[in-house]
């Protein structure tokens, strides 16, 4: 038994999302993406434009690129970021669920820690012996 019109809920949800999109501080999001090192060179790169650069070397040219990644941002009612992440597509073209992405990130973190430990051990071995 329905107590209210589901279309009204869906429409208002959409309005809320549209309002949030319009109010997103893109500069802050970009900063967060860079700080968290979420973009890799595997991400889709689009050529945007190119123009000769005004400098003494005539072969110089400034090229613009657009990096496209499926980004998910979760915000609370105060507008604070709760989570930000990249939902990467797997080989079948489907986007991995956030839990899987988190696991991949966790594994990458572990690998990086192992690498850092290896470097520490070698530096110690070289400089202390």
């Amino acid at each position, binding site marked *: 038994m329905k107590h209210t019109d589901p279309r009204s809920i869906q429409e208002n949800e959409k309005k809320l999302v549209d309002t949030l999109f319009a109010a997103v501080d893109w500069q802050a999001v970009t900063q967060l993406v860079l700080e968290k*090192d979420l973009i890799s060179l595997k991400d889709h790169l689009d050529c945007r434009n190119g123009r000769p650069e005004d400098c003494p070397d005539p072969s110089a040219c400034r090229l613009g690129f657009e990096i496209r990644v499926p980004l998910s941002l979760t915000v609370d009612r105060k507008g604070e970021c709760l989570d930000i992440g990249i939902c990467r597509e797997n080989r079948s073209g489907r986007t991995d669920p956030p839990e899987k992405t988190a696991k991949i990130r966790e594994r990458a973190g572990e690998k*990086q*820690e192992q*690498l*850092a430990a*290896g*470097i*520490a051990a*070698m*530096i110690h*071995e*070289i*400089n202390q012996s």
Partner: protein
Amino acid sequence: MGIVLTISGPKGGIGKSVVAVNLAAALALYEKKVLLVDCDPRGCATEWTGVALGKAGHDIASVLNGTMETSEAVVQTPLAWLDVLPAGFDLFVTALGMSGDVSGQTRLRQVLHEDASARYAYIIIDAPSSWGILSVMALTAADWHIAPVCPGMMTGTDCLALLRLITHVRKTHRNGSKIGGFVFNRCHGAADSQAFLDRQSLSTQMADLVFATHIPSDPEIGTAAEHRTPLVLDNIKSPAGAAFLRFGKEIDQMFT
């Protein structure tokens, strides 16, 4: 006895020759007698210092194959305190001939210590980035390793690769060389290098070994290379020129 510093790194384009040439010139400006050894057949350091390979046989290949003494092969530069042991394509041919001989790996160390070390305060080797006998030779000759780190081009994996190579050389030839430090190239200060170390989770491991001097990106580096003059001589007031001068002082204070 002079100190042998090998400027080494696991890949091309990270600034090994830039650091080698300009560190050598900076130390020479502080009136330290310096020998810059070009150990790369591409001859970047040779070309940059304005040394012409005109006189046949006056190069590192002749020293390694035993046809010439180091003292005969070195070429003086316009800067009185800086000499160069140049390299060219002959070095590649000589290295090919030596590649099957393990004793060849210590040949550069042997000739530099026997024939050059007493006459120079610093011997700076510009190592090639390939993992061949020339890299091994350059690392084996080192008392200390100076590794440029270029944040835009390198990751922790590259640092580990270099450390593995150094460890291999130390174990094989027992040369007792140590890591002098990591110099950040194309990097605009401590905040940038710290951000790189944090991203790679290497702050604890490497921070103590990062030199205070950071070499910034600077178009004047390219201009100096075109002029075949080290940047510290071509434009000492440029951002990178001033940084290399500071780096020379930092290195000299470290070893004196």
